């Protein structure tokens, strides 16, 4: 059953017409609830397609990934002027560079808020992140003139935690939702711009369906994001079924709730304990374990590492990760993509050959 997902543009217009503010948020991890408590609606910017890349290219070298190139182009096109602020989590050297460039040089009309994410999972990392979130709160309070109470923060946290839980259930029931690869990811990724309430309603209606298990060779995807999204259709055409993923934008954001009743600490606990992600400094061993468990749970037969060109955080782990998975009987394929171009025929052929191999 096709799902009726509102368009991003319409959602933004609706938010604005209701007096809400919009935060353009760059990848990857950030506290949605903190923004919502200020009546700020996060709309994520993952290197949008169809931008004039030459705009970013005039200030960024060609060896910077397309997500960053596109984001800068998008900002320079004026496409983010609708946003009341830009939030950029500290994800990698390239996004760090972009943030700095925006703050010191480009100076877009909307204020830029950086957010440092600690690279460890120690108690000191949680304490630091809780303080970093408080400092973001102070900045947002100055921008909006509001000061949400702890109760308001906790209510926003509860809404997002419900969405996290629903996203987790979508993955659990993935094979009986009756959704093809593309529809499943369109639904999941709608959370990149939908308010929590709307996403929750969509997710619940999808979860209410109980369809016959989908056919196809079960496989996992890993990387930053499934773009260009045509890869999902392509996999389906080749009789592959994406049963779960380790995408930074999807599976790695299945946050568990924090434990603390104190809102900042609770948000920090949840972000720090998220599934392993190289951009948050997780050890390779944690990632191996995560992928192996995911494959066991979903009966996946192989992994496609679907990577954005020039993404160092992903590239460093790959050899060890693939070797460790192979030792545990999980074969993998590594593909690098340029998210601005359609998939080349050669990539399609390699995916086809990989799926064929999995079937024998």
């Amino acid at each position, binding site marked *: 059953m096709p799902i009726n997902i509102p368009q991003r543009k319409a959602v933004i217009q609706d938010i604005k017409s209701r007096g809400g503010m919009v935060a353009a948020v760059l990848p990857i991890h950030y506290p949605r609830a903190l923004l919502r408590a200020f009546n700020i609606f996060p709309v994520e910017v993952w290197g949008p397609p169809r931008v004039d890349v030459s705009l970013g290219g005039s200030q960024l*070298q060609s060896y910077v990934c397309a997500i960053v190139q596109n984001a800068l182009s998008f900002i320079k096109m004026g496409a983010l002027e609708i946003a009341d602020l830009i939030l950029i989590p500290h994800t990698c050297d390239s996004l760090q560079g972009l943030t*700095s460039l925006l703050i*010191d040089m480009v100076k877009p009309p909307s204020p830029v808020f*950086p957010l440092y994410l600690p690279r460890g999972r120690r108690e000191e990392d949680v304490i630091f992140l809780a303080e970093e979130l408080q400092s973001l709160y102070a900045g947002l309070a100055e921008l909006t003139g509001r000061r949400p109470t702890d109760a308001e923060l906790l209510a926003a946290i509860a809404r997002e935690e419900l969405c996290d839980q629903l996203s987790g259930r979508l993955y659990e029931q993935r094979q009986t939702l009756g959704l093809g690869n593309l529809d499943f990811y369109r639904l999941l990724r709608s959370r990149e711009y939908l308010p929590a309430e709307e996403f929750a309603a969509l997710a619940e209606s999808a979860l209410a369906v109980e369809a016959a298990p989908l056919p196809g060779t079960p496989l996992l995807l890993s990387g930053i994001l499934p773009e260009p999204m045509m890869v999902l259709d392509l996999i389906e055409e080749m009789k592959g079924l994406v049963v779960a993923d380790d995408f930074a934008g999807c599976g790695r954001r299945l946050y568990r709730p924090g434990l603390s009743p104190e809102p900042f600490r609770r948000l920090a606990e949840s972000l720090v304990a998220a599934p392993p992600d190289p951009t948050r400094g997780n050890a390779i061993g944690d990632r191996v374990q995560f992928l192996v468990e995911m494959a066991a749970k979903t009966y996946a037969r192989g992994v496609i590492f679907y990577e954005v060109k020039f993404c160092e*955080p992903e*590239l460093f*782990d790959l050899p*060890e990760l693939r070797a460790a998975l192979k030792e545990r009987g999980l074969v993998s394929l590594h593909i690098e993509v340029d998210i601005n171009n359609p998939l080349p025929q050669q990539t399609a052929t390699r995916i086809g050959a990989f799926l064929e191999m999995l079937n024998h």
Partner: protein
Amino acid sequence: MTIINSLKYYWNVKLTGQPFLAWQRRQAESHPKISARWRSDILSPPLKIAARTRELISRHYLEGRYAAGHRPVAWVTSGAPVEILQALGFYILYPENHGALCGVRGAVVELSGAAENAGYSTDICSYARTDIGSVLSGKTPVGRLPPPDLLLACTNICQTVLHWYRVLARHFQVPLILIDTPFVYSKLAEHSLEYVKIQLENSIPAAERAAGRKLDYRRLKEIVQLSKDATELWQEIINRGHQRPAPLSVFDQFIHMAPIVEMRGQKATVDFYAALLKELDENIANGIGAVRNERKRLLWDNLPIWYRLRYFAEYLGEHGICVVASTYTNAWGELAPFMNTQKPLAAIARTYISPILNQGTGYKLATMQRMVTEFQLDGIILHSDRSCKPYSIGQIEQRNRLIQEFDIPALLLEADHDDPRAYAEAQVASRLAAFVEMLDD
């Protein structure tokens, strides 16, 4: 630690190796020879201190060859707070410095190739590729590297080092201490500083376990003092470039900076830089400049191109151009004021969160503008280093503003600091030639 290893260490390092290296250095000092390839027509004779630099670097790697099983060994990132490890008696290896040495000796293509054959992409930093290739193949131009008992990664230069050290930690199966230093976009936040300090405090037990001894805080203070002394001397050395003609070029600095990077906190390093400063002062008194006929003065931004140091020194020297200052070498001196021995951990935290690479692109632009004035510069070469995104992103705009707002010629050169395969010989030569011509206009 075993007696056999200690005996080997004393025999090979203390009894034979070091005396031999000292003898070699004395020979070089008493009978200075200038290589036939040295362009004496355009460059002044090499600094006398060069023999001592060679000795110090050789001693360092010689010790490394025999350190395993005798001393605890730590591998650390170039901006890591090493004072605690120094005080605990670690032998400290800097894979980035080793990578630079491999670059100078032309070993990068082979070593990086070993990493690439194992699946590491050519799109990751060439220092990391060189190091991982050296680890996987066991090859190095310095004979042998001691395996680490401990790894220390500090994110104050880039996030790349953490990814790289995660690979090393998995390979060697040793503990990795992370000192995470939040990036300073505009103002250093108190909670960031406190975070670094707490990590330093919490790292001590793990470092003590790997060292097999307790940290002596008196010794730590002495080491912080030695680091501060060496760093201050290095800054003075760099500042001698204010003189006309400049007594040393950045190509000299790139070579003589090895001790300030990999031997901070040692008495020998302080003595070395005191001697270098003395030699520079003598040269200044005698009117000797690094480039014989210095007409123009430049700034270098970003890492050196290790495999082309000589080419740049000679090509620019031929045109009477001396590159007298660099944001890169300056980074090792500008932190001296933050070091103090009263509250060593707080001082270490402040020092190591503040390097230029951990600060915004506007700070770097302001540093370049200040250097242009202080060193009376005529132009800037910005090396856009394919490997080093944290240093390179922002350079295009920095160059534009230097040209527009500071009215100073600035050239952006695409290359890679260690991997010669990313260096387009003809293209660099023609862009450099056009730039030199423009300087004369």
